């Protein structure tokens, strides 16, 4: 057992960290948000140059053969910078569907473009009444000659507006809420019958409501075996939880550091407010919450590559609970310790709070996952 990064991983960490430090200041970020795409195409190109857009994909497919640790390194850096590019949507979620379910032909045709930054993908899975139920798919796909016809409505599709292609889940059999009968399809962003209503999110990213009205796709648009895609969806969600955990840890680390710095510089009653014990203890508690979250993000990273489905699911649930709770604690304390300045849009702290809170509410909040874990017999089970 060791916590050391390999020399290659250390190099990756340094170069992503430097990229974000050099090009992702808070002012820059504000200008990226205001740009027409709502994120930086320039940064997207830089990510491609650094190799992180193709990071988790096999080298044979045109990727860089990185694992969960590499993804953790990148997402933590993005969390620190509050990056708003569609990395999670394109590389982790939709890209994950390709990795876990795509055919060699599909991967060969898409991964190189994705890695070069020439193509953005999105994962159109969630639906209106699904809340956190991954099997709640009411969108239908039916056979039509040599292809399929998809009808339905997808919601909260992260970066669905920017996506050149979408990975869409649809039901070809079974009942809504059932694991059987779910299929995944690659759909062109400009496919006739597909419409998107885009909007900004609380955390300054983008999302879209996607309507599919008799959208026709060829047979080779199918990812995985027809009707058996639920394990892929679940695996993608688990990868995304591990990635979000790393991102949240990056955000918490920066937010704690920002707050501690403020405590040292802000003076009241003639002294730095960080000299007051009640505030020191809050800051210490923030650090503990951050470190506990970091530990669980590492645990999730390790378990993301486990082939034990039940153990992996339990680990991801546990990690999501921890980052949800730690993230809320750290961000609330940060705003409180900053006082009025923490409430303003022009200051960074509140933006971390917004991202951390949205992370909690994605893919199941802390309460959802603690319930799931309790129903699954707990984290330790009989084995401790």
């Amino acid at each position, binding site marked *: 057992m060791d916590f050391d990064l390999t020399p290659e991983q250390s190099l990756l960490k340094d170069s992503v960290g430097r990229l974000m430090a050099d090009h992702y200041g808070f002012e820059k970020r504000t200008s990226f948000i205001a740009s027409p795409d709502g994120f930086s195409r320039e940064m997207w190109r830089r990510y491609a140059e650094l190799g992180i857009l193709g990071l988790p994909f096999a080298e044979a497919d045109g990727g860089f053969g990185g694992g969960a640790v590499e993804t953790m390194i990148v997402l933590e850096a993005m969390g620190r910078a509050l990056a708003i590019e569609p990395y999670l949507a394109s590389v982790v979620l939709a890209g994950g569907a390709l990795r876990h379910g795509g055919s060699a032909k599909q991967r060969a045709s898409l991964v190189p473009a994705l890695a070069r930054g020439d193509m953005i993908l999105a994962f159109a899975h969630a639906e209106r009444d699904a809340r956190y139920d991954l099997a709640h798919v009411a969108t239908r796909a039916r056979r039509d000659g040599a292809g399929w016809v998809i009808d339905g409505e997808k919601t909260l599709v992260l970066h669905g507006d920017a996506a050149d292609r979408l990975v869409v889940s649809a039901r070809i059999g079974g009942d809504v809420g059932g694991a059987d009968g779910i299929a995944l399809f690659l759909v062109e962003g400009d496919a006739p019958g597909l419409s998107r209503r885009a909007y900004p999110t609380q955390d300054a990213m983008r999302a879209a409501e996607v309507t599919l009205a008799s959208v026709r796709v060829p047979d080779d648009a199918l990812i995985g075996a027809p009707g058996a895609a639920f394990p892929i969806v679940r695996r993608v969600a688990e990868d995304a939880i591990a990635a979000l955990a790393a991102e949240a840890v990056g955000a918490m680390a920066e937010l704690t550091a920002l707050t501690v710095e403020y405590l040292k510089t802000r003076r009241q009653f003639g002294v730095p407010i*960080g000299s007051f014990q009640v505030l*020191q203890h809050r800051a210490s508690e923030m650090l503990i919450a951050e470190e*506990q979250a970091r*530990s669980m993000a*590492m645990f999730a990273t390790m378990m993301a590559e486990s082939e034990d489905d039940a153990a992996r699911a339990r680990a991801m649930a*546990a990690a999501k609970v921890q980052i949800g709770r730690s993230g809320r604690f750290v961000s609330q304390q940060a705003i409180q310790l900053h006082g009025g300045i923490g409430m303003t849009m022009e200051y960074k702290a509140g933006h971390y709070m917004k991202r951390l809170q949205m992370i909690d509410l994605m893919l199941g909040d802390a309460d959802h996952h603690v319930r799931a874990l309790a129903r699954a017999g707990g*984290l*330790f089970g009989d084995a401790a």
Partner: protein
Amino acid sequence: MDLRFTPEELAFRDEVRHFMRASLPAPIRKKMVEGRHLEKDDIVRWQRILNAKGWAVTHWPAERGGQDWTPVQQYIFQDELQQAPAPAPLPFGVSMVGPVIIAFGSEAQKRRFLPRIANLDDWWCQGFSEPGAGSDLASLKTAAKRDGEHYIVNGQKIWTTMAQHADWIFCLVRTNTQGKKQEGITFLLIDMRSKGITVRPIVTIDGGAEVNEVFFDDVKVPVENRVGAENKGWDYAKFLLGNERTGIARVGYSKERIRRIRELASLTRDGGRPLIEDERFREKLASLEIELKALEMTQLRVVAAERTRDPKKPDPYSSMLKIKGAEIQQAVSELMLEIVGPYALPYAPDTEGANEPPVGPDWAAPIAPTYFNWRKISIYGGSNEIQKNIIAKAILGL
């Protein structure tokens, strides 16, 4: 980064686990599982079994009887011992005064005391806290005046755990009242059979009497029983307090307690069905497991960092382990209390050979006392508030 144990580490874990199963005497294990009071003889007997195997002082240097294990192996050993669940080797000797003597003691002290600590031939207790010196330990007043080849010690120590069993006490005493209070403290080893020592038990809210007051009235201590230099005791005390880096979180014991919670919650019926089937209870337990898993990972990270740290300097991250470990153990004791419910009420003193039949389930009696007793965990060894001060200062730079 690979957080799995290597095949060698797994083999080592199996070896330790097998030893614990084969060697931990059943009556001791039973008391541990049931949360009952251990007698002095239980603790001595078990430590001598460990010592015969060479495992009583594993973290000491090999030439002093320790094991040349990696930090991960040390962690695995401790985790398996705690999960057995077995008593820890007496910490006052093995984890506190032993490492201080190794680091700062004379060769004669090492030869005289270390083997007897390992075999628990000498039972040590800790003379740090005083009525006026708790969190502000450096304000201690127990005085040692030099008189030829002796110090004459006068004063009082308090909260001295198991002083009633002790052969020796290691003490912080004041040898200089001028200048900074930290710079007038000396570290003395005192024979508990010395003339002028009185031990008075303190009954705690659980009804037990594991802590004591120790009074010193013109106690003569040979100068050769001073550790290191006069007036340098504060440095040794800081070393001692930061030394028990990894054991303090007691993760293995909490894992074992969570198994016990599952077991007892399965035996307890609530609304006609086992309490363990109650969704709210299960969610509380799951939340606790998550906290514990996070702590375990945090602890492993601290363990892994030991390789590259100065072993003579305390790691401020151990304060984090202390705080979370205390919170989790106290949460465990609350959940146990919730399970036992109304049968927490009867008070039955935990004395060996009591023949009264239990009121309610036979496992009920120790639970409420343990809950009361475990409030100490966030107080001893530097209260959780002191630990937060340490984090604020040493890590955050506030």
